[in-house]
């Protein structure tokens, strides 16, 4: 087997445009997904079974089926309905692989994120919620000022993992002809039939993206973490009682 470094160098510009597509898909999906995840998570913490039912089914479906099925259901599945095909509003969006991938990624990551945010909301110490009530905050105020800010900080490590999973999951965009990093690599392989070199190069680029993002997330976590206030006087300094 003749390993060709030249091919790796030659395909780098194309692979880098693939990186751009991957990052774009993930960034948009994660950002939109977040705005879906928060209300879904809040509804999931409701004690009313009627309120719970819809967000529960949504999360259950998107966490219980493969992302690939979700992509195909949206890209091929929805297009098989006459209503969708004849709709001047839906069809221009749903016939584009790009939008279909984006919708699938967004709904998928939102479902996983909703569970993370829900867990974090439930992990907010009772005392803080009680304190908010005690000083007369309404439920909405308590959510906005106390519960959600606190929950985000608790959720951050798990949420960071979800972003990493989304980066890796985005490789599936290539199954519906999108030229993300994996799609670009597959295209080059189909032309050159040099899978080892091209996939190796793509793999290294993924590792750079993933560990780059991990590094950034660690920094953000560190910035946002609260260091407990240092008490001016320690108990033992108070001297003998």
């Amino acid at each position, binding site marked *: 087997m003749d390993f060709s470094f030249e091919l790796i160098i030659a395909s780098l510009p194309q692979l880098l445009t693939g990186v751009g597509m991957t990052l774009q898909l993930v960034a948009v999906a994660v950002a939109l997904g977040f705005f879906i995840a928060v209300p879904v998570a809040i509804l999931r913490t409701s004690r009313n079974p009627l309120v719970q039912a819809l967000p529960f089914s949504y999360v259950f479906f998107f966490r219980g089926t493969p992302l690939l099925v979700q992509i195909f259901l949206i890209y091929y599945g929805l297009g098989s309905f006459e209503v969708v095909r004849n709709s001047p509003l839906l069809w221009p969006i749903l016939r584009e692989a790009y939008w279909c991938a984006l919708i699938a990624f967004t709904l998928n990551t939102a479902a996983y994120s909703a569970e993370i945010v829900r867990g974090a909301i439930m992990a907010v110490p009772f005392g803080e919620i009680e304190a908010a009530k005690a000083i007369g905050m309404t439920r909405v105020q308590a959510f906005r000022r106390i519960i959600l800010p606190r929950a985000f900080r608790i959720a951050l490590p798990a949420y960071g993992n979800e972003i990493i999973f989304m980066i890796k999951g985005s490789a599936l965009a290539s199954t519906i002809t999108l030229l993300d990093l994996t799609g670009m690599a597959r295209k080059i392989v189909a032309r050159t039939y040099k899978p080892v070199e091209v996939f190796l190069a793509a*793999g290294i680029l993924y590792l750079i993206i993933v560990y780059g993002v991990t590094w950034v997330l660690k920094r953000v976590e560190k910035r946002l973490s609260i260091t407990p206030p240092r008490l001016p006087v320690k108990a033992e300094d108070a001297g003998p009682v």
Partner: protein
Amino acid sequence: MLQGFGPQLLAGLAITVQVALVALGVGLILGLSGGIAKVYGNRAVRGVAEVYTTIFRGLPEFLVVLIAFFGGSLILAQFSEDAELNAFTAGSLALATTFGAYATEVFRGAFQSIPPGQIEAGKAVGLSGIKIMRRIVLPQVWRLALPGLGNLFLSLLKDTALVSVIGVDDLMRKADIARSVTKDSFTMYAAAAVLYLLLTAVTTLTLHLLERRANRGIRRTA
């Protein structure tokens, strides 16, 4: 409604389960070895395990599947002209490799939460290293690692859909075939989705029972 493709989809489901179980088996061996290497290994062994988890936790599962299939075919072609790589094998092993990398971290955590005093006690009564492992450490590791491994297996179940792309006749590919024949994409993928949901729901339930069994006799708060 399924236009006669029901049995085909069920046959695909059976292949999906097989891929998942093979990948689970091989992945558990990889993960256990990796975990032992990271906690008890010397520098070199630890280094190897570190490189393994760093690479395979950072690569998309789909890319690993593609590398295993296309790279594997090419390597196999070096040895024999007419050897053909089995997509099932390549796909299962690719998924196993990723599973093993994550499982390594789960096992590492489990090994590290065994109190060192227990191992010292084992040494004190004169057990050999292997016996300490088999009689003291491993029986507890199972209980500690189970929740993490369960979550990994659920991801694995869903990732098996990726092997359809390299031509394994799993549930996803059967749905693809049914779609191209009937042109009724929505029904076919929806049927596949329902079967996957069923699979993950049954697995979640089984894991719950396994966890309850593994935790029998453990003191709990509340």
